[in-house]
Each structure stands twice: as structure tokens, then as C-alpha cells.
């Protein structure tokens, strides 16, 4: 016993160091595990408050850019609306069926895009109906997925995160792939697993696929920048230039799928 105590006293600095280092590693592993309730995260009220104040101040510097984006979106919506009113009533029926989604406007108050695992902070939380697994998009395209929400804030896993992959497809072709990020540049993501039968051209639009309960089908992602066929595995590797400038995010929308519980229930039943 005496020897153990002597040992601890003698090597206290080293032991203390390894203890704290172990704690730090545990926290890091936990933070790198997708979909795990975090012990410490930026959606807590103290850091959330600071980020909110800071975002409220810096928002003024981005007003011009934000205005431009919003007016672009307005123009796009007007165009859509115009097309809708031109078409006959049958299309309107299908349109009303699609409104199983509702959109909640929100703002990104903290952004990161340089790390391998990037997270964003949203200025709305459970109080405003933001829940885990909701999709976050901006007017230009997808941004990420809500991972965790507290009362007033929500933590979003950015598409610029090496831990997630998103089902994506071509806008004008039926081929699917998964969109991942290789952490090289915040302006490009990679689309993998597209079969060799696909006919790809530079400039093709990539949108979200329908095989997801998170993203509605057809949300824009980016366009094909370059691609090559990996002969060994027979799949294309495609470099996608994102429509969104992930380095500068302001207004976004959270998408709520109303029938999600029903769909999840159905999936779970089929597993049994």
C-alpha cells in the first residue's frame, strides 16, 4: 500500500497528464461519432448566447450579399409560381400532395468549414419545432442535417463532414450515388458509387435523391466539375462543385417531413 502511494506521489505529474489526456481523447472520440448525444456541445446556452450576440453584430456586414441571395430566390420562386399558374388543375392536385413538408426559416449563427468534421449552430431549437434529423437547406442548396437540438439552439452536422454521406442523384438521369466530403476544399464534395452505365457530362446538376426520410427529392446540391471512372471497382468518382458557398451561410430553412413518424414506424414494423 505504502509503495502504491509512493508511486502515485512520485509520478503524480505524469499520471495527472495521462488522466487528462485520456479524458480529452474520450471526448474527441465521442465528438467524432455520428449521432451520439454529446456531453459538451456548442448548443448549450452559454456558448449559444455568445454566438447569437456575435452573429447579430456581424450579420450587418453580410447584408448586401444576403439581399442578393434572397432576391435570387424570390425570382426563382416567382418563376415557379408562374409556371404553376399556367399549368392545368391536375398539376395543382399533385402540388398540394407534395406539401407534406413544412419549412421553418432560421439563421446560421456559427459556421465552420475548415475541419474534417464541421458543425454549424442554428439560432432556433426545440421551442421553434427544430428536431433531430431535420434537413437544413438554403435557397441555393443543401447545408446539413440537424443532429441535436436544445431549447433555443440546434447543432447541425454540415455536409462538409467526413462522417456523413447523403443520397444524391442526377437531376436529369435516374442514377444514384452517395455524396461524401474528403475534407480537401469547402467548395467541392465527392459523389461516389455512380455505376459505369451512367452518362455523365461536366456541368450536370446533382440533386438529393428520394431514398431518404430527411431530404425531400430534388433539392439542389451542385454540378459535376470533373469525373473519372475507377476501372477496378467500376464506379465513377465525381467531383461536385457545391452551389452553396458553405463558407458564408446566413438564412436557411429547416425542413420538417410531417409523415416521418409514420414512415419510421412502418420501417420498424417490417424489420420485426
Amino acid at each position, binding site marked *: 500500500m505504502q509503495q502504491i502511494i509512493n508511486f502515485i506521489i512520485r509520478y503524480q505529474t505524469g499520471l495527472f497528464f495521462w488522466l487528462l489526456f485520456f479524458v480529452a481523447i474520450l471526448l474527441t472520440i465521442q465528438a467524432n461519432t455520428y449521432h451520439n448525444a454529446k456531453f459538451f456541445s456548442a448548443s448549450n446556452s452559454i456558448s449559444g448566447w*455568445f454566438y447569437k450576440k456575435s452573429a447579430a453584430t456581424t450579420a450587418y456586414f453580410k447584408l448586401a450579399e444576403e439581399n442578393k441571395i434572397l432576391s435570387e430566390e424570390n425570382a426563382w420562386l416567382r418563376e415557379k409560381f408562374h409556371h404553376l399558374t399556367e399549368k392545368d388543375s391536375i398539376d395543382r392536385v399533385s402540388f398540394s400532395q407534395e406539401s407534406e413538408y413544412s419549412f421553418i426559416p432560421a439563421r446560421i449563427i456559427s459556421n465552420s468549414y475548415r475541419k*474534417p468534421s464541421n458543425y454549424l449552430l442554428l439560432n432556433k431549437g426545440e421551442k421553434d419545432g427544430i428536431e433531430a434529423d431535420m434537413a437544413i437547406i438554403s435557397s441555393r442548396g443543401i447545408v446539413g442535417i440537424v443532429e441535436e437540438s436544445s431549447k433555443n439552439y440546434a447543432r447541425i452536422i454540415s455536409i462538409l463532414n467526413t462522417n456523413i454521406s447523403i443520397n444524391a442523384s442526377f437531376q436529369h438521369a435516374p442514377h444514384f450515388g452517395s455524396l461524401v466530403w474528403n475534407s480537401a476544399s469547402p467548395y467541392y464534395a465527392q459523389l461516389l458509387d455512380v455505376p459505369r452505365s451512367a452518362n455523365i457530362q461536366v456541368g450536370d446538376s446533382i440533386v438529393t435523391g428520394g431514398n431518404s426520410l430527411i431530404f425531400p427529392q430534388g433539392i439542389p446540391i451542385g454540378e459535376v466539375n470533373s469525373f473519372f471512372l475507377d476501372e477496378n471497382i467500376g464506379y465513377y468518382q465525381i467531383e461536385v462543385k457545391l452551389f452553396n458557398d458553405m463558407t458564408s451561410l446566413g438564412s436557411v430553412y429547416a425542413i420538417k417531413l410531417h409523415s416521418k413518424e409514420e414512415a419510421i414506424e412502418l420501417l420498424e414494423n417490417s424489420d420485426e
Partner: protein
Amino acid sequence: MNSSLKHSLRFIGLLLLQVLVLDNLLLFGFVNPYLYVLFVILLPLNMGKIQAMSLAFLLGLCVDIFSDTGGVHAAACLVAAYLRPLVLRFSFGINYDYQTLKFYQEGFKERLTYVALIVFVHHLVLFSMEAFQLKLWKFVLTNTLYSFTFTTVLVMLIIALIEKEKK
């Protein structure tokens, strides 16, 4: 000013400066300075190892909470604080051993060695933990070198400013 008050203020000041300002400051689009390591550099030279490691760990953890990085910054600060006595001895030599070291009276070269070594250790641990995968070693090395240069220059500038004030 009371020493512990001074260090508490420095702790909070550097933390907020880091997470609210510097994390948004990207030189050439991707180089980010981690100035908060200045806190570890300027801890009292005769402070106990365990106390210094605890404070450094706490500061790192606070930065982690703000930037959602788990324990990456905490580990980096901890290693920097743990190796600090070694680095001090290496940079300042015999003065450190005899406890007669006055940081602001040392030459520029010695101070630069000390700052650069601490910053390098901190950044290397930081980016390795952040990548957390061996295949990203290129990311680790390039980011460490770029950020290291940026941070070291900033730290030296700020130390020079503090020094002017003290004279």
C-alpha cells in the same frame, strides 16, 4: 494588478477573442491562428506543473465547447503545458534552472525559440487529433505549418506590445 485576477481576465479575454473573432479569421482562405495558446505561454514560470496543466486543459476544453470539437483543443493545451518546463529549460538554459528567469528580460532569440516550440507542439497535437485518421497526414502537416507560422508571428507581436507597456 493581482496576479490571479490578471490571469483570469487573460483566460476569458483570449477565449472570447479566439472563438468569436479569430475562428472566423482565415488568412488566404484557410489558415487559422490559435492565439489562445498565448495563455499557456504566459503562465507564471514558477507555477506548479499540475496547476499549469489543469488551467491549460480547462482553457482548451472551453474552446472545444465553443467550436464543437470534443477534446481536441484540451489535449493540445495539455500537452503544451506538460512539455513547457522542458521547453523552458531548452530555450532559456541555466536561468530557468536557478529560478532567476525574467521572461521580459530575455533576448529575442530565446523567446522566439520558446514561443515557437510551444506553438508547434500545440498545433501538431491539435491538428493530429482533429484529423483523427492517419490518411489525413497531409492535412495535418500543411495545416500545422501554416497555422504555426501565423500564430507564432501573432504571439511575438503581442508579447512585444505587452513588453512596451511594462517598460
